[in-house]
């Protein structure tokens, strides 16, 4: 069980007095799997991602992340676990806009995380197609380039899991496809585990496994079909 990077058991998250955004969700994500979490707006998919990733604490249930029970960790220890073992790609506001590309990628290391050698930095920038742009300010980059910087930062620490929250939500289909292939390559080549929230069937089609949420409950857990079938599944769930 210990080498399963993400395990949730009876997960629940309540906002305010009575609204349960997430209800009794249990799941396990084995190493090297690319999981897509889908559902309508307000179905609890972002809440699930936040709880699994240790960005939020669940009201009920347990989460094991990279072998640690995050529901029991104190804030500082939880932060170090995120820094050393987890990578993040959000929809936007991923980067500090006054820093260069390289400095954004090196941020986890500068926050005290694992050291990143110049060679490792060059390799990751090359892998995401940004070699030669290391000294550019991210404020001057296009949206697609910024998301690739975010992917590079998420992957550079060789994390056990990468959590991605609508990573292509602000991108056009072509640019979004490039970012998704970067995540797919990381899974296939390096055995990284990816948990991605998305509302886009084309994005979800890059995954191995599909989780479907409705009103905070897990209503489907299948091998990922092709994009049209995902759309049909979403329509049925709604």
């Amino acid at each position, binding site marked *: 069980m210990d080498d399963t990077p993400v395990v949730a058991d009876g997960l629940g998250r309540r906002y305010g007095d009575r609204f349960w955004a997430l209800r009794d969700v249990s799941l396990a994500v084995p190493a090297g799997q690319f999981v897509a979490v889908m559902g309508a707006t307000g179905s609890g998919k972002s809440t699930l991602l936040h709880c699994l990733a240790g*960005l939020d604490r669940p009201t009920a249930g347990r989460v094991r992340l990279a072998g640690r029970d995050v529901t029991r960790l104190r*804030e500082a220890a939880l932060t*170090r676990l995120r820094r050393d073992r987890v990578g993040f790609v*959000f929809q936007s506001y991923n980067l*500090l806009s006054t820093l260069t590309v390289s400095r954004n990628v090196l941020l986890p290391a500068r926050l005290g995380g694992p050291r990143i050698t110049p060679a490792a930095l060059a390799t990751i920038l090359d892998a995401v197609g940004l070699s030669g742009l290391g000294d550019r300010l991210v404020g001057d980059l296009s949206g697609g380039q910024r998301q690739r910087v975010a992917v590079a930062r998420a992957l550079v620490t060789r994390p056990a899991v990468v959590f991605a929250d609508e990573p292509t939500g602000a991108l056009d289909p072509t640019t979004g496809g490039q970012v998704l292939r970067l995540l797919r390559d990381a899974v296939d080549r390096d055995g990284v585990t990816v948990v991605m929230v998305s509302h886009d069937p084309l994005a979800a089609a890059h995954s191995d496994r599909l989780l479907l949420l409705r009103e905070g409950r897990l209503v489907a857990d299948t091998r990922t079909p092709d994009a049209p079938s995902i759309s049909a599944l979403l329509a049925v769930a709604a």
Partner: protein
Amino acid sequence: MRAGIAAQALRAHRWAFVGPASTQLVAAMVLSATLTLRLTVDGSPDLLDALTAFALIAVYLTILLVGVTMNAAIAQQARDVALLRAIGATPGRIRRAVALEAAVVALPAGGAGYLLGLLAGWAWLGSLVDHGLAPAGARFTPEPLLLAPILGVLVVTSTVGALIAAVRPSRARPAVALAEAETRRPRFTAVRAAFGLLLVAGGVTLSVSIADLAPDAADDAAFFVMLALCVGVGFLGPFVLRSAVAVGRPVLALAGGTGHLAADSVAVLSRALSGALVPLVLAVAFAGVKIAVHTTTTHVTGRAGPAAEAWLDYSGTTVYCLFAAVAAVNTLATVVVGRRRDLALLGLAGATRGRVLAVVVCEAGIVTVTGLVLATGVAGVTLMPMVHTALGTWMPYVPTTTLAAGVLVTAAVVAAGTVLPAALLTRRPPVREVR
């Protein structure tokens, strides 16, 4: 490293640090003026005691105000803080970075304040000599060695204030912080209104009940009357502002669409703006009471009061009011900076830059008038028992020129916190703000 994050935050959010920096500048000014005079002038014991008191007030208010303004500064960086927390900055690291930011800002602000304080102290000594508080031959001698301890005091007080301010934001869960950066809707609760009414009613009751006390006891109690009224006004602030908008709308309508826009935005921002009403009302009411006590005495008895005592009183009032003005300007400016996208949207919707600024000027007018009316009420309720017990009259007296000066200074303070930042923020084309 730590310094890396701090430097990054400093560069990305220059606006956020105007608050702590202006507090530190005023504090350094007061410290430089009072300590230089304390060391170099052979004044009366009263003066020396007063100088020490002013310096201590400056230290205390610096911790408080740096804390308050740093809190606003962190709020403006909420998104960056949330991102840093998500990818691996511990709460302690965020707190240290915030403290370091406050300390780094303190050095240039303190240096500038020290120099301004020398100027102010030199001018002040002239007036002290005129009022017989310092010997006629007293010379103002700058003491360069004071710069180091003043900077030291500023760095320490700023660090303490910043550390206190950073406790809560640094502990916020990143997911909550990421969401809060988007939506945050404060409410005007019944509890808040009840507290406000209770304090105002208590202040008025106390004022009535002390009207028959001996003058000294009435003076002491009057301080609590004013405090209760000011805090009460702070609680009721959002409600008072919305009422002011409702009452003033017919007048504002004369300015056409501009007036309506201003009325609408003050009503929406009433909660945030009321944070500026407390220091504003406190300062104006406090200054009003201090001045009116002396001018009413002169007016009723027909002879001038002890000039030296009055002048020390005015000096102390100036120190308090300086800090209150800094607090008011910063709170107002924080509101304006938080609205930069809204102002840009007005521009995109077809308003010229002049029209956008006219809206802000109208808003400043609403806040100024509301603040002045409240301050007059607070000062009136505080003063009446004081002048009654001491002079047997119910009617405080203040010369018209002094009143006019008070109105102008208040309007200038409000404008400095609203119109000035709005003018600076709308220099860029609006489309670049809403990217």
